[in-house]
């Protein structure tokens, strides 16, 4: 009898853990990240909970200050829709031009920029070597 209680408890813990993971992973947004155009269409919809946005860092738009931990740049999606991103914090070593990033935060509709709480750099899917 004692054994079956233990079993039930362990089962509940596991179902709970898996449920929590599913919930935190998928339901807050049905997608892991949004495209820039999706955000610009309706920022208010996503601002409530915050969002992740993916895009290409636009060449020539980066303002970087390591001392003040200030980073400003534009990201654009494949259709060319772009938005300004401002980030305060430790700048990732891998951050540079011509890469894809995922920014987490909220869109400021009045000032028209994205306030990022974190910046994730995407690495390339194609692995190449330095010199051929």
């Amino acid at each position, binding site marked *: 009898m004692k054994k079956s209680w*233990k079993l039930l408890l362990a089962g509940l813990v596991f179902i709970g853990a*898996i449920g929590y993971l599913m919930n*935190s992973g998928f339901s807050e947004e049905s997608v892991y990240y949004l495209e820039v155009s999706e955000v610009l269409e309706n920022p208010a919809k996503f601002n409530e909970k915050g969002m992740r946005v993916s895009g290409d860092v636009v060449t020539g738009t980066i303002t970087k200050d390591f001392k003040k931990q200030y980073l400003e740049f534009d990201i654009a999606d494949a259709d060319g829709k772009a938005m300004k991103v401002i980030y305060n914090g430790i700048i990732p070593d891998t951050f540079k031009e011509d890469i894809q990033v995922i920014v987490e935060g909220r869109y400021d509709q009045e000032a028209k920029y994205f306030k990022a709480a974190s910046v994730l750099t995407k*690495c390339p899917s194609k692995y190449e070597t330095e010199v051929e």
Partner: protein
Amino acid sequence: MKIQKILDIFAVLMVCVALYFAFIFAPSEKVMGAIQRIFYFHVSSAWIAFFAFFVTFVFSILFLIKQNYLFDDIAESSAEIGILFCTIVLITGPIWAKPAWGVWWTWDPRLTTTTILWFIYAGYLMLRKFIDEPDKRARFASAVGIIGFIDVPIVFFSIRWWRTIHPNVVQEGGGGLHPDMTKALLISVFAFTVLYAALLLKRTHIASLTRKIDSLEG
């Protein structure tokens, strides 16, 4: 006994060869540099975790059909080895993610489904510990071993089905590898597969000995 020894020696040799290919033969990656070499261990471990859970799946079905306890022993052994390699995946992943993405962890579909996979098989192994009657244990575990396998294709295809930060390097529609990196990866996967076979043989042997002792005591 002899085949175990041959497999052991072959596994040790292949791991040495794979280490040479991963660290010396394979060229450094252009963007990420040396850290990218963790790729050979990360992907090979993921492959073994998938494969091990597949073996558990197959032998769980076989047990339910044939009621042969050897199949139950193989299913258990394979799940144990699978969770070991799944743990390696979940350790090497964050080590690589920190320098590549800037964070240790993010709730991305690939990462989330892999964590769920770990929990499913941790649950499978705990279930086995909780049930004393061998026949009930084998039947319940088989059910979990069959249903739990659903998550494996979900993990595998997650990077194609959903938006994700996780790169798709080798799957269809993926970016692709330098030919020398492909060679190193194939050798690593082969070495890990030999290691898996050696471990499975040993673990199954222990499982059937344990079953014999238990039946004598009972």
